[in-house]
């Protein structure tokens, strides 16, 4: 089925597809890794695109009782029930306008898909180890296991989320402190 070029995130996903194809093309290896920038309030974060499955406008999310507040609930993603994690709550960031349109970034690690709720998505950017800075990580209770580092981007800084570390983090399963 042809993709809908007007669907949310389709422009970025098309770039993701091209980036993945380039990675598979001999002779195009690069030290750069592709990241998708996402916004949490006014702060910029980035996720490696290799984990990215889809970007969708936040659907109806069913709340689950007696789970940590960073686990927002579950959603139906094409007949598959996915947990949705509120990244702002996980990083202990203040909540923003609850009526604002948000995006769920569906990621896949191993065979497990998870939805990550963010305030917005930005660009697909190539970053290399040279782009990393010595800037301190944002304040967060899980910073050692959930960030690869901080990089310079468009005159500012972007925190690179270690998605594998995040999804395997014991903090993901622990009550908020």
């Amino acid at each position, binding site marked *: 089925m042809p993709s809908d070029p007007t669907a949310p995130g389709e422009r970025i996903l098309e770039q993701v597809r091209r980036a993945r194809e380039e990675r598979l093309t001999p002779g195009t290896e690069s030290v750069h890794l592709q990241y998708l920038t996402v916004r949490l309030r006014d702060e910029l974060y980035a996720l490696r695109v290799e984990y990215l499955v889809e970007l969708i406008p936040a659907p109806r999310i069913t709340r*689950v*009782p*007696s789970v940590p507040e960073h686990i927002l609930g579950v959603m139906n993603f094409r007949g598959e029930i996915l947990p949705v994690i509120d990244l702002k709550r996980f990083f202990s960031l203040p909540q923003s306008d609850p009526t604002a349109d948000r995006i769920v970034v569906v990621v896949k690690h191993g065979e497990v898909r998870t939805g990550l709720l963010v305030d917005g998505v930005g660009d697909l950017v190539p970053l290399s180890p040279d782009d990393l800075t010595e800037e301190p990580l944002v304040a967060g209770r899980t910073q050692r296991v959930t960030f690869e580092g901080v990089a310079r981007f468009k005159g500012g800084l972007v925190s690179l989320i270690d998605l594998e570390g995040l999804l395997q983090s014991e903090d993901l399963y622990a009550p908020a402190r």
Partner: protein
Amino acid sequence: MEESALTTTLDVLTFRVGPFLLGTEAGPVARLAMLNPGVGDCAPRVDLRRWCGLGPAAGARRHLLVVGGEAGEVAYVVDQVGDLITVNLARQIWPLPPLIERHKRWRRLWGVCARGDELVLMVDLVPTVEDFQRHDDETEETPLTSRGKGFL
């Protein structure tokens, strides 16, 4: 003729506790009633708001959902009784995602079913003999240990 697994259905009674939309197998539900604090009930009562991590309900009319099992009946107090729905086991019921399964503090939560474009969290409310035996053990975290603590 044996029923095909693809067409097997389950009757589910939905109900709400605070913001949570929950459902339970309808078969073991013995009766529904309005909660009347002045009238006693033979069945021990369990307030599901407590098990959903919520505070007491403020002034709203609440309902009793009496569920029978091998050990007897338990009257669960819920905020609102919803619909009786029939769901297809193969297409409309899923286990909990591993993240939720691993974390859940309410062990009776077991799955998710679809009602239209909504999801209903499935909970097993059938009381067991073990539940009643644990009644006097205050360290056990089962709904029936709440009996007699005066939270209603």
